[in-house]
Each structure stands twice: as structure tokens, then as C-alpha cells.
């Protein structure tokens, strides 16, 4: 008698557990303060040295990831969200680093070169089940506003962080991973040979362009 009661209780509990699990799995995670992370660059990334340092201005950062939920970093375990749009985070990171290197213009009119950024990936990418694979990838159109000529510069950053069991640790590791891949991508852009070549070519064309004087 007692064994059948125990069996029934176990059966009921397992049915409730399965129903609860199925209901939870069906719902999309919602952003809450406890599952939201704030990704920052931390210290600005030092830029490469230019022979004749230009002044940059970031005109636009456009999301080209095609991700319908760009702020959702991880869907599992109740979800992990970013507190700001990835485009805002990337713009802030680049502006901080350019400003620290004294390469940021005060406004668009005083800039030697204007940057338009196309963000292709921000956050976690598919890795092995043993870790988190952070990836930030963007392309920058470096434009000389005077000559109208522009060149493309690609930058990518990766990072690998350990996975964890506890939600708190998962959140910490994901945040570290995203921040590290962002830092890596900004560094890849600011230290890249492509940027050096683009600046060289565009400055040459700027010097070669005829100076237009306004007619009286």
C-alpha cells in the first residue's frame, strides 16, 4: 500500500516537473536587472603610431548582424542580455580609444577622416560545449571627406572563456568574454596594417586634391 502511494507521489512530482520544464523552455527569456550585463572596454586600447596623425570622426555605427535580438547574448539558463545596443558599445569603445590617443576630432567638420562602421557580429558565437567563444567583427569605411575617396578596413576580435555551472559564474564569464573580444577587435582595428595603409593612401589623395577657394 505504502509503496503504491510513494509511486503515485513520485509520478505526480515528475509530471509537475516535466510540465514546469516544458513551460519554461517554451518562453523566451526576458531582460531583467539580474540577467543583464554591462560590457565596457575598461582601459582604452593604445593606437598605432602614425607618421602624420590624422583626426578621425565616427559618423555612424550600423548593425549588419541580421540578429533580431542583438542584446540577447545567451539564450540558455534564463538568458543573458546586454544593457545597451552593440552598436552603442562599439562606438563608445572606439571613441574612448581614439580620444586617449588624441586621434578623435571634436566634430565632423574638423575631421581628416570619417569612419562609418558596419557591425557584423557582437557577442557569443557557436563554440565547443566546453567553453564560451566570444567574437566581435566589423568593417570600417574610412572616408576622406574632402576628396570623397574611401577604403575598407576589416577588424575582428575573438576570446575564449571557460563555461561554468552556477548562473552567477556563467554571467561573469560571458561578460569577461564579450569585453575581451571587444578589446581584441578594437586593438585589431587600431593596430591593423589595413588602417595604416588606408590612412597613408587617403592622406596622399588629400594632399594631392586641389584646394577649392570660394569665389568672391
Amino acid at each position, binding site marked *: 500500500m505504502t509503496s503504491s502511494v510513494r509511486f503515485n507521489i513520485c509520478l505526480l512530482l515528475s509530471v509537475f516537473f516535466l510540465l514546469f520544464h516544458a513551460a519554461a523552455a517554451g518562453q523566451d527569456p526576458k531582460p531583467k536587472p539580474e540577467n543583464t550585463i554591462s560590457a565596457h572596454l575598461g582601459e582604452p586600447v593604445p593606437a598605432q603610431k602614425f607618421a602624420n596623425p590624422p583626426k578621425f570622426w565616427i559618423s555612424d555605427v550600423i548593425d549588419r548582424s541580421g540578429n533580431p535580438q542583438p542584446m540577447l547574448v545567451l539564450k540558455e539558463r534564463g538568458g543573458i542580455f546586454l544593457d545597451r545596443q552593440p552598436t552603442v558599445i562599439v562606438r563608445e569603445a572606439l571613441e574612448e580609444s581614439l580620444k586617449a590617443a588624441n586621434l578623435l576630432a571634436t566634430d565632423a567638420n574638423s575631421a581628416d577622416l570619417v569612419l562609418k562602421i558596419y557591425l557584423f557580429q557582437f557577442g557569443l558565437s557557436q563554440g*565547443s560545449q566546453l567553453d564560451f*567563444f566570444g567574437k566581435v567583427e566589423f568593417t570600417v569605411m574610412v572616408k576622406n571627406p574632402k576628396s570623397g575617396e574611401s577604403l575598407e578596413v576589416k577588424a575582428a576580435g575573438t576570446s575564449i572563456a571557460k563555461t561554468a555551472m552556477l548562473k552567477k559564474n556563467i554571467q561573469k564569464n560571458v561578460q569577461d568574454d564579450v569585453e575581451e573580444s571587444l578589446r581584441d577587435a578594437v586593438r585589431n582595428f587600431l593596430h*591593423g596594417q589595413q588602417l595604416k595603409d588606408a590612412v597613408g593612401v587617403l592622406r596622399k589623395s588629400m594632399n594631392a586634391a586641389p584646394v577649392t577657394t570660394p569665389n568672391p
Partner: protein
Amino acid sequence: MRIGIRMLMVALLLVCSGAAAKGKDVTPQFKTAEAKHFTQAEGVELSPAFGDYFYAELREELKKAKLAGEVIGEGETVDDADAPQSIFITGTITEYKKGSVVKSTLIGFGAGMRSLKMDADVLRRSDNQHLSVVHVHVKIDPRWNEKTMAKFAAHQMVKEIKESMKNQAK
């Protein structure tokens, strides 16, 4: 009582030796190391995501191995003064066999394993001189995904590069 004191002394000795070993600073052999995305030989059917993941893993393993003071990203500039003491790693995935779960389950003893062969060249940055050529062959269970295989391959590759560099230094 005596046994307890002896145990305590042994434990202290172990802790001290561990701390001494940790405190030892290993000076890296090179100033910078750059890993490039590996190319795939004709007939190799691996997803583009594999290349990205392997590149990331290779960089992580290079950082862990402390072969160079700094592991830089692909296409980054290096100061002219540091170029003779800087390396870059290029490579090709020469063969990939998907493996067979059925063969692996029924036969066992290594049959049906997923296998990956790759060659890597370590070159000096200043003059593109070959410092080392490494061949890696990794075999894993066919039930594991290709990203796990990338992890093993990157670990194996850096281990072999480090060994070959150590032999050259001798």
C-alpha cells in the same frame, strides 16, 4: 603526535616548493606571435566557423604556452625593432575525415574515428625565414563536434611548435 608534526612539515615543504615554482618567471622566446587563419586544401569539407574557432583556440593556446610576450591578432603591425624577434604562424588543413559512428561502435580499436591533418609553418617576421615546420594529426570520437576537434588540434599544434623551438634553441 610525531606523525602529525611530520605531516605538517611535508605539507609546508610542498606549499613552499609550489610557491617557488609559481614565482619563477619564464622569459618568452619571442616578442610577438601572430596566428593566421589556416587555409583548407582542396577536398577538405569543414565549415567556415571551424576556421574562426581554430584561429581563436590557437591564439589562446599560444598565450598559455608563453612562447611570445604578446600574441597579436591577424594583420596587426609590429614595430620594426621587434620584427626580428617576432614570429607568425601560417598553415593548411590537408585532410579531414568525418569518421563513422557505426564503425566506431561496432569495430572500435580506433576504427571510424574523426581525423584531421594539418601542416603549419613558423616564420620569422623580419625576413620570412622558416623557423619550424609542424605536422599535426588529431583523431577524436566521431560523436564529438568539429569545434572540440579544433580545441585538441590547437593544443597539439602549440605543444609541437614549443618543442621544436626548444630543440632549435639547444
